[in-house]
Every structure is written in C-alpha cells, then in structure tokens.
C-alpha cells in the first residue's frame, strides 16, 4: 500500500459526515433492547419488552403472517427475475435473434430508464388486466421492473464465458439448449446467485408497489405492516416498538448482506462497467 500520510482532519471530516448514519443505526439497535427516560438521550434500562410483539399479537397485530407474505412475495419475484433473466440474457448474449440489436438497445434504455415514472401506466395496465389489488399483479410488476437490470447483469456474465466452451459443447453433439443447461449455466452460477440475492433483498424491502397497486387487498407485506405500526396517529405510537419491528424486518436483509457482501458489490454498483 501507499505510504500513510498524516491526515487527521480528513478522518475527522469522514467521521463527522458519517455521524448521523452511525447514530441512527446504533440507536436502532440499542433502543430495541432498552428504555430511555423522556427527554434523555441515553437509555437507562435493559428490557426485552419491545420484542414482545413477536409472540403477542395484541401489541401490533400478528407479525408472522406479513412475514410469510413478504417471504412469498420476495421469493416468487426472485424466481421470476432470475429465471427470465437467465434465459433472456443468454439469448441476447449468444443466440441469433431477429432485431437483436434493437431489443438489446431497448433493454439498455429500460435499464437506464427510471421505471417508477411508469407507475401510473402500470396502475392502468393492472386495472385493465384485472390484476389490481392482487398479490400476483404486484409480483409481476415488481419482477418486470427489475428485468432490464437482471437481463443486463446476466448478459454481462454470459458474455464473460468463453465462446470456445460453447463451441466445444456444440461440437460434442449437444443441442444449444443442452449446452446452455449443462455447460453454460454452471459457468454463470455466481451471477445467478448474486442476482437472486439482490432480487430477494429488493423484493423484501419493497413498499411502494404493494401500497399503490394493492392498497385494499387482504395481503399485507412487512413494509406496509411497519408503516402501519409507525403511523404517528396510531395508538401504539412508540419509537422503540417500531424500531424493534423495523429491525426484525431488516434482519434477514442485513444477514444476507453480511454473508454475501462481496458477491453483492458488483450488483450494488448497478452492474455497470462504466
């Protein structure tokens, strides 16, 4: 490494800049296990009472049903994104298609394009398709909005697989499908895994789409649940409780992130090689 210049002012600046984040996340953790006297900053007692919502549905309502729904939502969306991106990415990377260039540019534009602007149009599509207020509709929309990104990422991974391996497979008598299935797919496993993780995390965290596209349906995902709990007009208004709920909600994401941090980095950068 390079010589370490003395740079205390810089480190100080970095610390000050990071302070809000640090404080927020520190107290997110601390407050769920403690009580603080009103008007004071520091906690004065350890307690587990803020976690009672896990077993006592009278506090904030049953938390396990939304958890299960969220899990279903995130995993079905993950399955759709990964499988559709895995096939489309391969086709765009390797196969002769009519209008291939056009489709590829279209997908790149969509990848760069901010998809939330389409929400009104999506709303209308769901209305017409009769999928408004349904979990299926929201899953399909969420998966579709992530597709350009997923296809783009997967195409990048496929592009990195040497053509010779594919040619060898074809020479060995395998059909293109067999080649994809048995030779190419194993090569892009890291890509599939990263994309799956990312899609799952993204689906798990999603708030806006269920809220807008299924406002009065009978399913509730954790983000909506948390938002209800943390509504300042509700009788259960208590920062410590909804911090616990929030932490409970975020824990799976944090765990995945910590476990697979390196795999996710490329994807968090937007899958861009700019």
């Amino acid at each position, binding site marked *: 490494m*390079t010589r370490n210049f003395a*740079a205390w002012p*810089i480190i100080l600046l*970095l610390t000050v*800049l990071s302070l*809000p*984040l*640090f*404080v*927020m*996340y520190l107290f997110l953790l601390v407050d769920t296990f403690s009580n603080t006297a*009103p008007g*004071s900053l520091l906690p004065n007692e350890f307690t587990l009472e803020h976690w009672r919502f896990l077993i006592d549905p009278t506090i904030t309502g049953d938390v396990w049903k939304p958890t299960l729904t969220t899990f279903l939502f995130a995993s079905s969306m993950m399955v759709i994104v990964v499988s*559709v*991106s895995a*096939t*489309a990415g*391969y086709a765009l990377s390797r196969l*002769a298609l*009519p209008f291939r*260039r056009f*489709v590829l540019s279209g997908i*790149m*534009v*969509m990848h760069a*394009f*901010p998809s*939330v*602007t*389409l*929400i*009104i*149009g*999506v*709303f*209308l*599509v769901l209305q017409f398709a009769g999928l408004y207020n349904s979990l299926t509709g929201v899953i399909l*929309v969420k998966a*579709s*909005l992530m*597709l*350009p990104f997923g296809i783009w990422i997967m195409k990048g991974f496929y592009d990195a697989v040497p053509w010779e391996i*594919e*040619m060898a497979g074809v020479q060995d008598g395998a*059909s293109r499908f067999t080649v*994809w299935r048995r030779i190419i797919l194993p090569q892009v496993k890291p890509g599939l895994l990263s994309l799956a993780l990312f899609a799952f995390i993204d689906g798990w*965290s999603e*708030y806006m789409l269920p809220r*807008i596209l299924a406002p009065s349906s009978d399913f509730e995902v954790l983000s909506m649940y*948390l938002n209800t709990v*943390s509504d300042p007009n509700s009788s259960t208004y208590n*920062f410590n409780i909804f911090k616990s709920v*929030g*932490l409970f*909600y*975020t824990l799976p994401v944090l765990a995945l992130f910590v476990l697979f941090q390196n795999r996710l*980095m490329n994807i*968090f*950068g937007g899958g861009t090689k*700019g």
Partner: protein
Amino acid sequence: MRTSSPYRANLLGLAFMTPAMVLLLGFFFLPVVLTSVFAFTNMSTATGISGGSYVVTGNLLRSLTDEGLDAKTIKALRQSSYIIDQAGLEKARTAGVDAKFITEIGERLKDRSFTSSSAFERELKTLPSRPTRVRDLKIAASAFEQSVLNVRYASRGEMEAALSHMLENPPQGAVEQIATASYTGWTWTTENFKNLVIAPDTWRIVGNTVFYVVLTLAFNVLVGLFLAITTFYLPSAGSGFFSILWLLPRITPVVLYAVMWKWFTWEDGFVFNIAQDLGLPAFNYMKGSVASAWTVVILVNGFVGASFGMILFSGALKAIPVQQLWASEVDGASRWQQIRYIILPHMRWPILFVTSYQTLSLLSSYEQIWLTTNGGPGSTTTVWALEAFKTALNNYTGNLQYGLGAAMALILVAVGLVLSIVYLRLFRFDEMMSKPKIEF
C-alpha cells in the same frame, strides 16, 4: 438455397426471449403507451377508467345555463312530465295500483300528457275509482312520471331519444349539446398540458425539482468521491467499517429508513433533544421549517445515493496502476497533489457516469420524500415526480386525476427517455453488442 445472411433466427432464442418480452411489453411498453394515451384524457376517479354513461344532473344543467342554453329547454329538462302510455300503465300495475283504476286511466287519459304533477293529480282525482288515500294516488301518478334528470342511459342514442321525447321543438343542436355534456366517462382533451403550463404551481415544482436534483446529486457525487478516496487510503479495517456503514441506507428497506429519520429529526427525536440541551431552537426539523425540511430531504436521499458513487469510484480507484501512485510518492507529491493529478483524472468517466445515472434516478425518485416530509411544509419540498404520483394515485380528496397525473408522468418519461438515450450514446454501450459466433 442458402440465404445471404449467415444468421438464422434461432427457435431456442425466440423461446428464451418470449417470457422477458411478454413481461417487458406488458409492464414497460404498455405503461408508456398508456401514459402517453391517457395524458390526453380527463380521466379521473369520477369518470372511471372504462367507458361512462349519459346522465343529466342538476350540476350539468347549471353549467349548461352558463354555456348559454336557452332557459326554456333548461326548464323543460328540469321538469318531469306525465305521459299516459302503455309503459306507464305497465309500471303502475307492478307498483300494485288498483287494476280498475289503471283501466280507467288507460281508457280516459290515454296519450295525454301533463307538465306538472299537480295538474296530473288533479285530473286523476276526477276519476271514479280513484284511491282514497293521497299516498296511493301519488304512487299511481309517479308510475307515469317521465324525466331525464338523474336517469342513467347506457348509450348516446338512448339519451338522445329520451331528450327528443322530452323536449318539444328544442333549439337547433341542443339535443346533441346536452347529450355530449351529459357523458360521465372520460374524454379526449389537451387541457392537461394547457393547465400545467398556466398553473403557477407547475413552475414552483419545476424549480423545486431542479433544486432537489442538483443539490442531492452534488452531495452524492462529492461525498461518494470523498468516501472512495478516504477509504482507499484508510487501513482496511477502517475502510471496511465505513463502506458498510454507508451501504446500510441502500439496503435498509425504505420504510424503516424513513422511520429512522423521523426518530432522528422529529419532535422529541435525537437532534431535538440535543438542540434542547444546548439551548438551540428545537422543533420538528422534518416539517417545521422550509430550510430544515430541504436539508432533511437532501440528506435522506444523499445518504442513500452516496454509496452508489462510492462503489463505482472505489472500483475505478483500484484500477489505477499502483506503480503510478508509488512513482508520485517517490517524486515527493503530497497526498493532495496525488489526488489532484493522478486520481481525479482517472475518475473523469466514472464521475460522468454516476452523474448521468443519478440524474435520471433522482428526477424520478419520490419514495423517500413521500415517506418523510411528504412534500411539506405546504408544498415547499414537492418535486415533480411526487406531484405526479399524488395527483394520479395518492390524493387526499379521493378524486384521483389519472389524466393529469399521466400528463405529468409523460413529461418525466420523455425527459427520462431522452436522457437515457443520450447517456447510452455517451458511454458507447452499443459497442458491447458483438454478433453471435456460432452461425448455425
């Protein structure tokens, strides 16, 4: 026999593309089309999104008067008339009116009409088998009542027929005018754009959007760069800590993230308490003043976006040949000089990339603002995307104006489309498209 192009459409390719194409067409292409189409309608909750029906309401009559329809026609529309016809007799029978009375009405008053209920009832009272109770008389009378007011007609033809039936010698074109005005469904219009241009709010919101995008972008890029460079020089334990800390906002679900900011900035929140202890002004910083609300909005979004820059810039930094850095140190360059003359020149493209990419996503982002300040206080922190979203999908009054919202979104879509095409050109992504090498 062989075609001139060596590439043959590949069935497997088509099969592999189909699911993606279906989803993209359905949820990207179609929404864009619908957004553009409905931007030219007055669709709202009131009109519904499928077709409407034809109703003449009291409100409509008032506005027709304003439009200059003659008073006689209006009066006629407002009034009910009583016509003794087969349908009326039928209706009276089902309403349980005495059969003898009905027969009498049919025989004596057949095909007569009355313009007021009192005249008709007076006439009825002269009939021998009239009911004794006034209430029964009124029931019988009402069976023959005919009015267009508040009656729903499914098609224009039915409405026009009813109008012609009601109005004797209507003025030229009146029937058509009333029928058109009575339509409750949505209609085509360019009003949305006209209204946007003349509304003073529009320009305030544009101003807000520009302000928001520029400041947040500056925060993102500068802090991202600062983080990338400092973590690059820091020993790995420190740099690891800071990069994870800064990545947290990006992976934290937005709802929780918003709640954390509320805790941080609200009354009785963290900053509030500190300010109070220090004797500084303590209030709800998220909503209490315009300046503090903007600060919160920019920080909330800035902290999320900074990690994007940080990751890309760190990647670019690691790609700088270490020899160059060593060489500069041997040459006695200070750290600042090293950054200025070696690192920053390498960062030109990543900076441009992050800038253009973030511009696009910031232009259309509203989730965080919505969940924190919700555009307030007043509408001081309302940006274009938030306003479009609220207009179309999240309105307190309950009347969602899909048409106007779509018009606002369409402008955003157009800007986004142009910017994304420009930036694809700029970064020459099309060079990544090589032809398939297996030609069979």
